[in-house]
């Protein structure tokens, strides 16, 4: 983990309020797993104090050769920190802490195997790097990506290059109408990975009980490195020695049903 002023190589809006930010720096070499995240300081200049806290953003993908990582984030709009981030331009630097946390265990999939990747909204980004890693190992990957509406869809073609991709929207304005869980029965798989809103993850934990499932969680964070205890979540096992996990450093990826959602 390092703190680095990373250089903005590209920054563009790829869907409604969704931005793709490419950053270059040494940090890329330290990334070990898809699903790790970085902690981004929005108020870079002159010791600015508002917004004060960093924002956790998943690493979408990384390229060691060009020392570049890609983030995809949603701007929360007026008066949010991420809105301020949208003003960053190519050539600027952004203060980034990372890579942080434990990502998706790619080796858990006994190759050759069929992996199912399920994403919702801004939970989709880390799954792209995951799918790349799985595909590289020769694993057959199927993607089920849920968005609210047509205007929110991003990265469909990127995923399609890696495997079969179902896009769904809640309001039916694009792809299939419905929720990602609606499709589960029709897709054969040996292992599943998911990232998205908590209700989605909860539904998946209830449905996928006979095969390995890994879920990536969100929690409000302060330090991002395990020191402040802001991001804890209880273990489902009441006899667990610690009784809790920190999403920032024990996660954000957990085995299904390891912690309370």
């Amino acid at each position, binding site marked *: *983990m390092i*703190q680095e002023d990373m250089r903005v190589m590209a920054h563009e809006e790829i869907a409604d309020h969704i931005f793709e930010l490419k950053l270059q720096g040494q940090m890329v070499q330290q990334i070990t797993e898809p699903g790790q995240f970085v902690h981004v*300081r929005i108020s870079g200049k002159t*010791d600015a*104090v*508002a*917004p*004060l*806290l*960093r924002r956790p953003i998943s690493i979408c993908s990384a390229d060691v050769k060009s020392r570049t990582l890609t983030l995809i984030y949603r701007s929360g709009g007026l008066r949010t*920190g991420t809105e301020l981030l949208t003003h960053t331009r190519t050539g600027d630097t952004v203060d980034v*802490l990372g890579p942080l946390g434990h990502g998706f265990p790619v080796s858990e999939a006994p190759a050759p195997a069929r992996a199912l990747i399920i994403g919702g909204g801004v939970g989709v980004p880390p799954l792209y790097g995951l799918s790349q890693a799985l595909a590289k190992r020769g694993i057959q990957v199927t993607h089920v990506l849920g968005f609210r509406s047509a205007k929110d869809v991003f990265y469909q073609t990127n995923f399609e290059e890696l495997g079969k991709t179902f896009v769904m929207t809640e309001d039916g304005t694009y792809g299939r109408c419905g929720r990602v869980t609606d499709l589960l029965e029709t897709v054969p798989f040996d292992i599943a990975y998911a990232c998205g809103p908590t209700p989605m993850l909860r539904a998946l934990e209830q449905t996928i009980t006979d095969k390995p499932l890994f879920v990536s969680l969100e*929690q*409000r*964070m*302060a*330090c*991002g*490195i*395990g*020191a*402040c*205890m*802001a*991001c*804890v*979540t*209880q273990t489902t096992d009441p006899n667990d020695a*610690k*009784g*809790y996990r920190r999403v920032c*450093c024990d996660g954000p990826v957990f085995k299904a049903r390891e912690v309370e959602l």
Partner: protein
Amino acid sequence: MIEVHLPGLDLKNPVMPASGCFAFGAEYGALYDLNELGAVTIKAATLQPRFGNSTPRVAETPSGMLNAIGLQNPGADQIIKNELPRLEKQKVPVLANIAGSEVDDYIATAKKISRHPAVNALELNISCPNVKHGGIQFGTVPEVAAELTYKVKAVSEKPVYVKLSPNVTDIVAMAKAVEAAGADGLSMINTLLGMRIDLHTQKPVLANLTGGLSGPAIKPVAIRMIYEVSQKVTIPIIGMGGIQNADDVIEFFLAGASAVAVGTANFVDPFVCPKIIKELPEKLNTMGVTDINELIGRSWKK
């Protein structure tokens, strides 16, 4: 030139992380050598393990943050077993923050923790609800805080710093009361009580409803309280509240602090403490100050 000597704490520099913002040093210790620090303040120890509050436990506010961690910690015994031995191997002095819900909790915790060789001094967190007195904080009634200080002093093998709550009408009265009860030093300030409401859920953001406000937003309150208290007590003050850089450290010294603690800023910049320690002598140089101790209380000294 930046060495300071306080009861139990011989510090090669006056900068330490604040309690609760540094856990027991393992995480930040993986990023830099803890021996660079003046001291380490560890997270509040309670007699029994505590899981703390439900999440969300933090919320951002303008130039600040609210936290309601709820004193999550593994309890005094586990801390002695798992955390203090690691710190004992370091040379850095340890200030051990302790908390409780009743006077007896504090006494028992103080006994255990103060006895440990890794611990150089205790810091009494009195911003805790006193369950035996209807949940009123120990830190808001001078007599209650004084009694607690007196009893902890009686059992502690190490000097005791009392950490004052800013949520009081008369901070000087609080300070004088705990000084009279035998406190060896003061830590100030703890967090201001605050709240943020989420416009979508229309409920408080924090599961605990209220939380403690920290960060740069509260610095003016901290400076004012230290300025007032340092003129009325003779024991040293460890200053904290919004410190981000060497300039802030100097402002706290000018107000009357003899050392400082850095809390929230660690979350913004995990290397902030070593950075400040490096920046401090340079800054003093440009000010023509040869010993940082000269600056203590200079804003009010003639």
